[in-house]
């Protein structure tokens, strides 16, 4: 559903982010997927990622004027960290680059907590995604809210199929209601109604000990 939304960190992967930058153009056009032009991972994810990068890069021509130096810096950054993703995935590592003021804009912000960092992104169609990365940069949870669903395949990464199968197996005795997926090592909850959805996914085994599931929202 969320074709316009470049999710920064899927549950469980690293986050690749911009470092310091001063240009307002970059601020407006802030898109992490341009940082890492060669996503790795499963072929499907990769193909989609590349498609989306092309899409976004068209926008970037008008909305984001990165300096050559900036581009080189960012490319170098990604080369230095081979496992960096165009976006992270639930359950993998997030390589967090120190944020600066330019990162705090209408579509993206960082929230620092005692034992984790929340990366909050808001898509043009109004979906907010929050990614929870632990101290070592691993995304242990994602939460979303908005009038539509985010691209869950992108967000859940390798956990997507597990979610999909469990969602199909959900027994509502013939009826409809929210999804509650409780697999060993993966919790996904999806509620709401048409034009307003809310949900979260987390990896209970990777949650920092002091984090309560109620904080993921």
């Amino acid at each position: 559903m969320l074709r316009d939304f470049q999710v920064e960190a899927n549950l469980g992967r690293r986050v690749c982010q911009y470092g310091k930058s001063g240009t307002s153009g970059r601020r407006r056009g802030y898109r992490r997927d341009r940082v890492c032009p060669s996503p790795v991972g499963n072929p499907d994810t990769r193909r989609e990622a590349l498609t989306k990068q092309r899409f976004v890069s068209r926008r970037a021509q008008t909305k984001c004027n990165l300096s050559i130096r900036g581009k080189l810096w960012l490319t170098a950054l990604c080369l230095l960290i081979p496992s960096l993703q165009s976006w992270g995935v639930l359950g993998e590592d997030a390589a967090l680059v120190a944020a600066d003021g330019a990162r705090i804009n209408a579509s993206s912000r960082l929230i620092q907590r005692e034992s984790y960092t929340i990366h909050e992104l808001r898509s043009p169609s109004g979906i907010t995604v929050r990614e929870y990365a632990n101290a070592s940069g691993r995304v242990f949870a994602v939460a979303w809210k908005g009038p539509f669903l985010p691209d869950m395949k992108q967000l859940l990464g390798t956990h997507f199929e597990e979610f999909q199968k469990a969602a199909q197996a959900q027994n509502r005795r013939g009826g409809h209601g929210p999804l509650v997926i409780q697999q060993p090592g993966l919790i996904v909850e999806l509620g709401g109604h048409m034009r307003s959805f809310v949900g979260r996914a987390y990896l209970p085994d990777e949650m920092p000990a002091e984090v309560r599931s109620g904080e993921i929202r």
Partner: protein
Amino acid sequence: MKPLQFHPKGLCAVVLLALSALSVGCGGGSSKQNGTAPLASSGGNVQPIVVNAGPAGNYANGVFTSVTLCVPSSSSCQTISGILVDTGSYGLRILSSAGGGALTLSLPQQTASNGNPMGECALFVSGFTWGSVNTADVIIAGEQAGNVPVQVIDPTFAAVPSACKNTGVPENDTLQTLGANGILGVGPFAEDCGGACTQSGTSNPGMYYTCASTSCQITAEPLARQVQNPVVLFPNDNNGVIIQLPAVSGPAPSLAGSMVFGIGTQPNNTLGKAEVFPVNSSGEFNTTFKGQSYPAFVDSGSNAFFFLDSDITGIPACGSNGGFYCPTTTQKLSAITSSGNPSQTITFSIANADSLFANRGDFVFDTLGGPNAGTFDWGLPFFFGRNVFTAIESRNTPAGAGPFWAY
């Protein structure tokens, strides 16, 4: 979803249910009425509804009605029963015969400016429906709406777009997965998408598509062409609906009631003493439980009280029916629904779902509950014994413009 299981006892129940549905179809209220809510039994704006197993024979707490569709401005019509009445969605969706539904009438397809048919991926929490956008005259009770954009749910219409698949929720394009011959979305909004789908580019969420023979492309869809709540297109009684279902105590095979069109437009649809709860742009208000406030909504299309989680409620989830609560003894609870000043305390009970489901002939459950992290979903049991008014956005009523709920 489990396949249908028929056995002699179940078959008897189905026959009984069919008889019960027939009696409803003949225009009568319900002999089961024991709540305080009066039933509007007649009038051109009154449509019988019934809670029963539905056309798939297995639906717990589903409220169904029938709808007549016609090729616009013609006498070529078909009446389809087993349509789920859903205050949590907006617009009429009919399951095609290709999906195992009852629709055989050929309705004209809506086409894009390039002549290609329009497709839609409509998103629900428990799944998506995929199919074409078609146009129909819609007749319910004595009300008629002309040229209504509806969705014909059809898994064979075109390949399901990846954006739709990538939501991860199940495809509900068959009788077994949908549990109904269609969905009548009569919630507090007019269109199923709204402003977002009228835009091009990145703001468009990807619900509407133009479909060439094999593949579909996301496209902008003006409001008036979006699949929409047929009520807003009625000439009269077009500002909302009332769902009226009597109270029950304990499981039952079926329950009859009424859907009344219009709010304050006829003697039989006045608000009376109902309290009005405005809802926000997401179609939600608040519910306070154990001192904590949560976003909430009223949804006849959710088949239980779905609220919070075991950590907060202290009620364990079931083992085999993991989406429901299974307390060892029935829990009496209360919560406060509010929207700014107006507030109302709702008392309700949650019983063990495994025990409720033990009798396969029962399909009405006033004490069925389940988890729903961080949210209160006042599902169908909320409607039992309570007249629930749903006022549609920007439509005037004697209590002001919608969207609101009143009860």
